[in-house]
């Protein structure tokens, strides 16, 4: 009897825990008689990337709130999923797969916003592809997810689409453009010899490879491209090696959680005048700001990084977005990814709305997304090509302000990229 009671007690505790966990991950909204469609985002909400993903989710919620949780005749139920774990401090393959499986099993799911990291999308795309769920990433840039361009791995991108039908799109320009923008920035900054380090993830190693492939277009010499072990306590030997190679600039291709701050500090100590460059994986205050665990303030004048976002105020509707963001969250200068969050949700809402009664059909939403050609948006007018890549071709170059925050410097539109 005592045993039975104990088991019943345990079951009750487990049920309560399950109930708590499911409710805590839910974003909220009410349903209406017109029907409900389920939208999901899957992003790393813990660790260093949260400096980018929290504003991104804020942007998503802002767009949803402006639409009063409605997309045409449907009420949108939005759920925030976290593809990171506290222990990893960044995206986790198991958690990403679990998120994708959860959405794949939801019959009302019509729109999946994610992932933030290209490596994570390598995990979720095949799962969602088999379920026919339309997936739009607000941040992925790795070329191999959608193309077989130089810089992708053998078998890409077909291996991510087991059904043979594309289900994945993205609203940020791919890394062949970002790498070219980085090379342009380095050339303009007077770099003669660049040492590149990558974090060995899909995004980092892909971006580093593209830098090497495109260096000739922009007359930049890359002295080395090294895959680092992010768990290494320090990178001083590496830094002394690249100093010996005469590097006057350093490019980190990777995300903040993967040793970006430590390697930058060590390179700065070995080559104090070296200019430091990075992609969107590090263009956030968790890397650029000393007060937020980033690099020391002495490095601020030396850092430049690229993000797809350009001058927020100069975008069509950018000022309205900034005003609305400030009104809702009290922040006047949000992270560059906030506007991508806003747009990725707007895209989903508009697509469902335009489909009228068909808005709750996954296949109809998918077809409509790929059919988008000249969408006027807060990012400017854009569409998608047959691979699901945006037609936007510019990157923003950011410097670091005296407060450690990335500050938009100028727009870079590369003319030459690998084909």
């Amino acid at each position, binding site marked *: 009897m005592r045993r039975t009671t104990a088991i019943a007690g345990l079951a009750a505790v487990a049920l309560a825990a399950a109930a708590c966990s499911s409710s805590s991950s839910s974003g909220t909204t009410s349903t209406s008689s017109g029907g409900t469609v389920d939208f999901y985002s899957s992003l790393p909400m*813990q*660790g*260093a990337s949260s400096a980018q993903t929290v504003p991104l989710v804020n942007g998503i919620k802002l767009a949803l709130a402006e639409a009063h949780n409605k997309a045409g005749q449907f009420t949108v139920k939005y759920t925030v999923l976290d593809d*990171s*774990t*506290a*222990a*990893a*401090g*960044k995206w986790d393959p198991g958690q990403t797969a679990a998120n994708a499986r959860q959405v794949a099993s939801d019959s009302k799911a019509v729109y999946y916003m994610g992932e933030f990291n290209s490596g994570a999308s390598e995990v979720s795309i095949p799962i969602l592809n088999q379920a026919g769920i339309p997936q739009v990433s607000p941040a992925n840039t790795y070329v191999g997810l959608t193309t077989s361009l130089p810089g992708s791995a053998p078998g890409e991108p077909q291996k991510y689409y087991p059904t043979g039908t594309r289900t994945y799109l993205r609203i940020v320009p791919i890394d062949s453009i970002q790498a070219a923008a980085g090379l342009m920035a380095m050339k303009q900054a007077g770099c*003669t*010899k660049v040492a590149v380090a990558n974090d*060995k993830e899909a995004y980092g190693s892909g971006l580093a490879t593209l830098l090497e492939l495109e260096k000739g277009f922009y007359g930049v010499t890359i002295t080395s491209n*090294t*895959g*680092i*072990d992010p*768990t*290494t*306590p*320090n*990178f*001083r*030997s*590496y830094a*002394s*090696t690249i*100093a*010996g*190679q*005469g590097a006057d600039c350093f490019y980190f291709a990777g995300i*903040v*959680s993967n*040793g970006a*701050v*430590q390697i930058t*500090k*060590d390179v700065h*100590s*070995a080559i104090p005048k070296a200019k430091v460059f990075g992609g969107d994986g590090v263009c956030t205050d*968790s890397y650029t700001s*000393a007060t937020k*665990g*980033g*690099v*020391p303030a002495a490095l601020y004048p030396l850092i430049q990084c690229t993000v797809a976002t350009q001058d927020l105020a100069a975008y069509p509707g950018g000022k309205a977005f900034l005003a609305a963001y400030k009104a809702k969250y009290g922040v006047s200068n949000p992270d560059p990814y906030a506007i991508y969050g806003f747009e990725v949700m707007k895209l989903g809402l508009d697509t469902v709305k335009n489909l009228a009664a068909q808005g709750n059909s996954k296949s109809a939403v998918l077809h409509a997304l790929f059919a988008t050609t000249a969408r006027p948006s807060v990012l400017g007018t854009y569409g998608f090509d047959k691979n699901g890549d945006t037609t936007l071709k510019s990157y923003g170059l950011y410097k670091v302000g005296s407060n450690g925050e990335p500050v938009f410097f100028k727009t870079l539109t590369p003319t030459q990229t690998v084909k």
Partner: protein
Amino acid sequence: VPVHPLRAVRRYVGRWGLIAALAALPIYYGVHDLVYGYQAGYVAGHAVYRHDLSQLGYNFAQGLSNGAIWALIAIGYTLVYGIIELINFAHGDVFMIGSFTSASLWGVLGLGLTTSVLGLTGGLLLTLVIVMVVTGSLNVLIERVAYRPLRNAPKLAPLITAVGFSFILQNVGLIWRGGSPQSVPDLIHVQQTVFTIAGVPIQRGYILAFAVMVPLVFALTWFINRTRAGRAMRATAQDPEAARLMGINVNATISLTFLLGGMLAGAAGLVYALYETNIWFFQGFKAGLIAFTAAVMGGIGNVRGAVLGGLIIGVIQALADSRMGPQWTEAVVFGYLIAIMVLRPRGLLGEETREAG
């Protein structure tokens, strides 16, 4: 009794092969630097090559200072294994707690980049003392809660509780400072060159690592060899039953061992935070693995062996990092461990455990 020729050859290879294996990398790169030179920078667009041993010297200086930190941690492993034959998996995490406590104390004491030299010296010495007390006490607590009740249990039982405590401490660190590596202030300008020896820049960090490690190791060696409590530790390590019959309080002696190991881990934690200017809840796992490897390499249970193992691993890491690329470092370190174990299964200076006699 005539020695079998094959055994003689094996003994010969064991002795000289080990020396050859240890010297292989430094000799190879030394000769390479002298003959082919190494790129030392660029002048007017042209690569400048130097033909000397200063690059190798730099690798050694950097490796030895890194190794000094591993040595401090390795001593904790070796002391505990020597006395109760347990791999204390939580030891690396005690070291991590040492780093976290240090960084928090800097905040409490107001130590920053603008603190005066006097204030910094006093503050860091105070931090060292507090951290050693905290981590030493923590290690004693772990022993009391997770190991002592299992003294007569099968050996697997305390091994599992050690793994359990390792995870508990990792989670404490995770809750304390989050999941990502955190940058901490470079209080002592750790990479600033103090002086140069034969073209090798000696940085503040190198001096710090040795300034903490050498006195502590000497103090520990003196304590173990010269004091009554130290003799009790040695007696307990050799035969706990006989030690008990001789009137030694074995439990108290084992607690003392954990206290000393924990204190050294705390000191290593402070040096690590100052040296790396970067702390992470997971740092103890990797550091623990390296330090345990150092302890095994030097001869488990042997304090001098742990120090030697730590220093050797530090140098191997620096050479591999600098010459082959960081992606090869772990493979090279563990390749060396395998070679040393094959050539000398009891480690470089021999085990000092009950099994070894």
